[in-house]
């Protein structure tokens, strides 16, 4: 996922939760990200700082933690399981960039290492969740 879009989405979500829960201040946001989203922590931090410049006071003391979940696949054809980390190096730069923009393109560029089927399940390490938001009323 694009890091700036992610930072914007996280801050937008935090403000929405603050409104729903009547929070006057948000102190911590924990975001879980699937490895397949191929987010750079450094770029995300830079994007988050930029997004935070125009935000209300309720976010002025917030810390945001990213937890990256390793991605794993299971072949629907032969049941073989493998990790994204094991095959990442086989992707060229354009393929890596495609997966960065749209993680589901992994189905285009990756195949089961055992039977070569593209019909595999992403069993973990996909998507983004705001795991927790801590604040004060």
């Amino acid at each position, binding site marked *: 996922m694009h890091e700036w879009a992610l930072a914007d989405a996280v801050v*937008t979500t935090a403000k929405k939760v603050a409104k729903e829960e009547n929070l006057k201040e948000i102190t911590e946001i924990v975001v879980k990200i699937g490895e397949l989203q191929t987010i750079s922590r450094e770029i995300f931090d830079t994007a988050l700082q930029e997004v935070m410049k125009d935000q209300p006071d309720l976010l002025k003391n917030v810390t945001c933690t990213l937890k990256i979940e390793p991605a794993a696949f299971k072949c629907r054809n032969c049941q073989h399981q493998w990790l994204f980390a094991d095959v990442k190096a086989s992707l060229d730069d354009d393929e890596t960039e495609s997966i960065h923009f*749209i*993680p*589901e*393109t992994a*189905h285009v560029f990756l195949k089961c290492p055992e039977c070569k089927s593209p019909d595999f399940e992403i069993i973990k390490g996909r998507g983004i*969740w*705001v795991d927790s938001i801590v604040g004060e009323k």
Partner: protein
Amino acid sequence: MDPRVNVIEDRLKEVKKIIAVAGGKGGIGKSTIASVLALILAKAGHKVGLLDLDFTGASTHTILGFKDFSFPDEDKGIIPPKYHNISYITIENFVESHAAPLRGEDATNAILELLAITRWDELDFLIIDMPPGINDTTLDIIRFIKRIQFCIITTPSKVTIDVVKRSLELLKDLDIPLFGIIENMTYPSEPVAEKIFPEHFIGTIPYDETYESAIGNPERIKESSIANTLVNFTKFCEKMC
């Protein structure tokens, strides 16, 4: 909570009308009509976006002759490349000519990702080319884009009309606005949709034997009888402009 869902409305806030071109069956001209609509609206001076969500059968790029499959520019998200004055996003930008075998959940995630990262900015119309049938993509679009309107394409065939009836029932149940119904490929059979769906009928597009040879050439498509017919739909234009 998936934070991507919360930014979609913001990404589309400067888009005046969002129209999904859909239909119950494949091969009835959804992609053609979505592409031609985008071309003629852009030609008329409107700011137009075209989003191809038919991931497994993307074809608007073939119809439009789009061949620049480089990644979109980035600036606080991705910026749709301009093609014939259309802001255009297709999965082909990311997979080029490779097959994209996405199952339902994968397609849902890909739609969510595209809607969350794409900066459409100011548009008069965003035309969405939908895959055939009522499926995950239809339900996703209804869930993610609250202002969506559907333009349903049919043919005179009983088979297509029957599926359209069921599609309309679903849209009505879900309280989703119907932009209208277009009957495509009518000649030489008799037009039928107007009698069956008088309230929502926009018009009839006769079968155009010359269209196939215009595919890939936007200038010729803009002059095709399909384009001329779409431009001339009074009811359609009143609603669109």
